[in-house]
């Protein structure tokens, strides 16, 4: 009986307090009635509360810049900017794309129109249409004001949670769980909308729509093979396999363009150096599984220069699973044959041969290294190794 009386009293009190607290703070539109931007917004188009999250976004932009996390390459920056302006011509430079120097798969949009794509994401993409898919998706978050909607929704839900928590402290755990579930679902809805809007854009501007599903297949494959639960970008997104299915449904409804923009020389020219840079970054961040996955794909030789085998060897060597030493040597050998002027493959090969007791082969590799890189910082060590092996004979 007592719980019933408590509930009977508590519910009207909660309703009254919530309504009072909410009424005091209620200055913004409800989240569901925020219209998308039709074109580049001016300051007067922003609600006062939206202006706040734009200001916070500007702070994030500044922090990323001052912490030197932005990959500064003017050609790549110009290309990405051109691409987003192709996809969203009516927004002009309101959308700004930057590359974060990070090896993991990620892309995100800030409420102020800044779009960040990681080096890791660019390195995995196979063609321009896949890049367009990612950028169009992120652009849709901006045009549809998802950041602002999310903030409004979060404020509204948190008010309910805290009011309930104050009045029904014993049930706080339930209220928190309900709120988290609700926030998660809201985010999934926005992701689906961004997928749909992004798809419409890539179709409208002549990109290959088939590639939209392919992007998510690639990411899903990597997530499975690298044993990651899911890539960071999709932590709050609908499940990857579900999204592949959604895109396939959209593709089925859309007539394929006769000559879609898929792979352009400019894309390849700009992305190839980035892929090599990604290999360096990924190894330094212990992403061995990702490097091995990407470099053992069938198309790796076409997408990476010959010396990429050196990075594959390094990934095997540093991972150190059973059989990895042998795989590392094979990779170094392949790299040394494909790029005979890339010195590092010979140094790495020499070290592995030396450890295996293959002195003649090790010495040969070290001598080749010294020929190619006589002034390198490793030269003294390599000479020392050669001397050690000669002394041991």
């Amino acid at each position, binding site marked *: 009986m007592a719980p019933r009386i408590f509930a009977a009293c508590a519910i009207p009190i909660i309703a009254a*307090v919530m309504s*009072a*607290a*909410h*009424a*005091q*703070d209620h200055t913004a539109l409800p989240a569901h009635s925020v219209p998308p931007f039709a074109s580049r917004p001016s300051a007067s188009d922003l609600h006062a*509360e939206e*202006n*706040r*999250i734009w*200001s*916070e976004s500007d*702070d994030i932009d*500044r922090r990323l*810049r*001052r*912490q030197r996390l932005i990959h500064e390459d003017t050609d790549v920056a110009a290309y990405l900017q051109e691409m987003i302006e192709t996809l969203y011509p009516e927004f002009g430079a309101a959308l700004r794309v930057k590359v974060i120097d990070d090896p993991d798969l990620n892309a995100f949009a800030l409420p102020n129109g800044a779009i960040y794509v990681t080096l890791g994401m660019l390195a995995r993409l196979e063609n321009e249409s896949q890049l367009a898919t990612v950028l169009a998706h992120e652009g849709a978050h901006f045009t549809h004001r998802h950041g602002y909607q999310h*903030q409004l929704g*979060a*404020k*509204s*839900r*948190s*008010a*309910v*949670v*805290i*009011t309930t*928590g*104050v*009045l029904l*402290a014993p049930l706080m755990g339930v209220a928190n769980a309900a709120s988290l579930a609700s926030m998660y679902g809201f985010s999934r809805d926005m992701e689906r909308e961004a997928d749909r809007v992004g798809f419409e854009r890539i179709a409208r501007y002549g990109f290959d729509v088939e590639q939209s599903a392919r992007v998510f297949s690639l990411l899903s494959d990597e997530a499975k093979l690298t044993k990651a639960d899911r890539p960071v970008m999709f932590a709050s997104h609908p499940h990857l396999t579900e999204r592949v299915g959604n895109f396939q449904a959209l593709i089925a409804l859309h007539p394929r363009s006769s000559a879609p923009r898929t792979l352009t020389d400019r894309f390849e020219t700009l992305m190839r150096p980035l892929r090599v840079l990604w290999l360096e970054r990924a190894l330094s961040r212990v992403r061995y599984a990702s490097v091995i996955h990407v470099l053992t794909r069938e198309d790796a030789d076409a997408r990476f220069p010959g010396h990429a085998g050196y990075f594959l060897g390094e990934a095997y060597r540093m991972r150190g699973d059973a059989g990895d030493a042998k795989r590392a040597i094979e990779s170094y050998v392949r790299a040394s044959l494909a790029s005979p002027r890339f010195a590092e493959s010979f140094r790495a090969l020499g070290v592995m041969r030396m450890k295996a007791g293959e002195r003649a082969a090790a010495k040969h590799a070290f001598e080749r290294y010294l020929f190619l890189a006589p002034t390198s910082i490793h030269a003294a060590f390599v000479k020392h190794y050669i001397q050690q092996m000669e002394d041991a004979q």
Partner: protein
Amino acid sequence: MTLKTALVGAMLAAAAAPAFGQFRHYTLDAPEPRPLPRTVVILPPDVIVREVSAGGIAEKVPEWTDQASVALTAAAKSYAGSQKHYLLVEMPGTTQDERDELEEYSATLYALAISAVFLSNYRGTEWNERRRQFDLSMGEGLAFLREKSGADAALFIIGQDTITTPGRRALAVFGAALGAPVQMGLSVVVGVLVDLKTGDLLWTNHITSRVRDLKDDRGALTMIRGIFGSYPSARKW
């Protein structure tokens, strides 16, 4: 608990709020006297003012942030000038890279001040040991500021203020009556003096207040006075 008791509790909690407004100080400097700078350049304050909604979501309010920055700058200049602790030097013009660099220093110093407070309050021994050997340094990266300004030291002022909405204040009254506290606003100001030649930290103070408002001229001046209350030349060694 009767409704009457609850209402009395709420009124008492509301009435007691200003009592929490007294400053809390966390001063850190060398235990022994050391030469103080004669000329100091005051950097533009690194400040952010947020509003906390009924549900506890904090949002930066750009116009309040700008107001607080102006108020803290004016307060720091006026107070430091009037106390003659040192000679003020005007902030020189800086490039974008230099401003980025200064913002990074500011963020690092704020993290240092916060961790010092944490260590002083909750862990005890670590910071006391650090105080005995007060040799923290930011390195030589601020040399450019010495060259440009000619000052011996730079004063970093970092401020954070959270202001609660009327909805949250209403909720806090109900919460107090029912014994469920709701976190209210807090103003924090950190002042750090850095030797521009060596990068050594000369002095830092961190104060908090539950009732001061950094965007308000009087609030900013009161907080700045509170900060300088522990400045070495204002105390007897």
